[in-house]
């Protein structure tokens, strides 16, 4: 009796083995190290959706071309919980366990900096779609990034304000406790003072993450006689800062940075944000060509306009594909292939991405244009101007 009952079980198990082993051997594995849980799950979600869209494109076309062969692509998605140690574990797992060819991510610098170290030590190419901290790629030939850097963005904004409005006195309000706003505020201040002399940043005010009342800082700014307010903050803070400054009677234009580029900015901020400017990687409203195609497709499947992080993830994956293609064929030896891909990626020139054309510097940072976006009276992100290095 017992033996008879075992027969179907054995058959099912055997069938499962057969299915499992029949998966073809020559697939390209690409690791995705993204924050699906934790502080910024929306960022992880955008990256995941963009990656899945890319994957269905590639596999729909029969695979990724390297040399003369087409390879099926498999995405290995790891959640890094938006924590540094978890990102390091995820990167190690992707490299040693899943044996991926390339890693895309992590997105925030606090994870990309340590994870980049792991990738460099294990000689695996990694590209961060979103990290702007110089240390992510510094002295790491295997680590690349897709966004422009803050030392570029700061001067771009300073020049834009100077040329557009002919202002000479600026105020800055930033989060002292957060890596990105702090860095950008410093770069902006440096660039502005270079243009207009020392003391031309008449108010340099700061606050701490999760503060919600900015009235004392904004009063100082109002009394300082600044002609423009620069605040490189995230969407939730932008809404509060802009609304409170209008309530306090601050009439000067407000300018932001690429962190404003989220659909939530206008939703939370409402009319007060209309007419504000910020620098970004791409402008959703009025986009043309491939960028528009990407936005429309994303909007159709997921029901909202993609943030810049999704667009940058899309570009990163296409950079990876270009690099794999440029290697001229995979050897099958993962170590050699990783080195080849890293070399090919460093040699990419004039890559046409949906966030602009890119060429990599020897540090692994792209040279690309920034877009100045104006928030229109309908609350859409309108292309205003393109600023190139």
């Amino acid at each position, binding site marked *: 009796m017992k033996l008879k009952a075992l027969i179907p079980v054995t058959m099912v198990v055997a069938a499962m083995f057969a299915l499992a082993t029949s998966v073809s051997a020559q697939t390209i594995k690409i690791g995705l190290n993204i924050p699906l849980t934790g502080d910024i799950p929306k960022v992880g979600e955008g990256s995941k959706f963009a990656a899945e869209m890319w994957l269905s494109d590639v596999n729909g076309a029969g695979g990724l071309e390297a040399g003369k062969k087409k390879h099926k692509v498999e995405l290995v998605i790891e959640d890094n919980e938006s924590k540094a140690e978890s990102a390091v574990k995820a990167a190690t797992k992707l490299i040693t*366990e899943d044996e991926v060819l390339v890693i895309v991510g992590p997105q925030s610098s*606090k994870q990309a900096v340590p994870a980049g170290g792991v990738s460099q030590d294990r000689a695996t190419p990694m590209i961060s779609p979103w990290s702007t901290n110089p240390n992510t790629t510094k002295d790491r030939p295997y680590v690349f990034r897709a966004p422009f850097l803050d030392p570029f963005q700061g001067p771009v904004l300073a020049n834009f304000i100077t040329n557009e409005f002919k202002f000479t006195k600026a105020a800055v309000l930033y989060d002292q406790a957060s*890596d990105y706003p702090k860095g950008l505020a410093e770069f902006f201040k440096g660039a502005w003072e270079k243009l207009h002399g020392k003391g031309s940043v008449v108010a340099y005010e700061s606050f701490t993450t999760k503060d919600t009342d900015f009235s004392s800082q904004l009063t100082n700014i109002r009394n300082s006689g600044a002609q423009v307010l620069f605040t490189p903050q995230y969407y939730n803070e932008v809404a509060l800062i802009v609304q409170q400054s209008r309530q306090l009677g601050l009439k000067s234009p407000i300018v932001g940075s690429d962190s404003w580029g989220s659909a939530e900015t206008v939703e939370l901020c409402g009319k007060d944000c209309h007419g504000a400017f910020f620098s970004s990687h791409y402008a959703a409203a009025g986009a043309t060509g491939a960028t528009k195609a990407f936005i429309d497709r994303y909007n159709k499947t997921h029901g909202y306009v993609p943030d810049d992080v999704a667009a940058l993830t899309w570009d990163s994956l296409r950079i990876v594909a270009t690099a794999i293609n440029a290697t001229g064929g995979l050897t099958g030896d993962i170590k050699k292939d990783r080195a080849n891909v890293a070399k090919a990626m460093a040699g990419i020139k004039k890559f046409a991405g949906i966030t602009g054309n890119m060429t990599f510097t020897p540090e692994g940072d792209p040279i690309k244009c920034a877009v100045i976006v104006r928030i229109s009276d309908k609350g859409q992100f309108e292309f205003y101007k393109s600023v190139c290095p």
Partner: protein
Amino acid sequence: MELRGTIRGFSRVPLLGWLVAAFVAVLLEIAVGTPLALSLGLPKIPVLFGVILALKKPLLFPGAAVYVLLIYALPIALIARLGAGLANRAAGRLLAFPLLVSVAVHLGVFYITLELWSGLSDYRDLVLRFTLIAVMVTLSLNVINGYMGEFSCSHPGFMAVGAYVASVLTIDLFTNHRVFGSALLPAALGPLTFPLILIIGGLVSAMSALVVAIPSFRTRGDYLAIISLAFMFIVKSLIENLDIVGGARGLGGQPDWAGLPTVFLWTVVCVWVINNFVRSTLGKALNAVRDNEMAATAMTVDTRYTKMVGFLFAAFWAGVAGGLFAHVLRYVNPGTFGIQKLAEVLAMVYFGGLNSVYGSIVGAVGISLLGEALRPLEIFKWIIIPLLLILVMIYRPTGLVAFKEFDPEAILKPKTDPERERDALPQG
């Protein structure tokens, strides 16, 4: 009846037997792991007992299960059971020497097993090192929250102090850094001075604990919880505003000195020292203060001094663990040592069990491995783990293995007849 007999058979296996069995299983994995995994249709050796693999690709579950059965479960059970007699005799003979010899032999076998097991995969190695550090942090917090019965929230702060002090020292002394300048000492000295640097980190952390201890131990009540929570935020803001250590941007480039042997050794020292501390007169005084401070004073316990010593002692070990953490991660930023870390450590303490070294080990290892193994579930992981915690809180309010003494001699001694042994055990 049959089952009970089998279980009784296993309860006669001493720790040495289990360790040797695990060692053999790991040898087996090294020898035939890869071919077996491939023939079962698995892409590689399952890294954490096949759980990750099975969750990610349910189709591979039977293969992973068979693998774990063939490599771990069956060999370990078989060797432990059949070798029980031999292991008991060996364990008995070891105890004839000073206890230290027996401890060293057990730890040696344990370490070699871990080293070989983690040698198969860098990922295992990393997870193991973070887990061992979690054991240190949990145990040190248990000294305050369990043995002393106060509620402290400052452990991430102590870790941060230790991590930054140790990082600044190693980076300043042994590496070329753009802020701190070129290396002051030759790199060869590095690994030798590393323990000293960790101890300095721990001591600075203990000194910083005075800031919390002096005002909050004047009184009784919930003050410690509030002051220590404030302390955690103060440390975080302080580091965020110190540009010399990178501010919010963090500090990277620590030398790679915290390998598995180093972390293992520190964990062993930490467990040993804390265990001796809580079993000493001072440790018993801590318990007395917790149970009834008035009575403790009446029994000539200097309560304030006792609490201070316990608190600083715990802060010291949190600092050492922080230093190790920074050198395993090789990057620190203030954001890591926030409320999330606090929740993690507290969960480990209360999951494992208060007032118990066993409990801290169980809690830290359990939560760490669970967090790693359930990784593929993404958001559901954060439903399952808290749910487990709630269940533990309902059915065992003080934790899984609370109020249990960790007596090395009792653990290492041969197990003869479980029935007789149970009768001989003191109740409670």
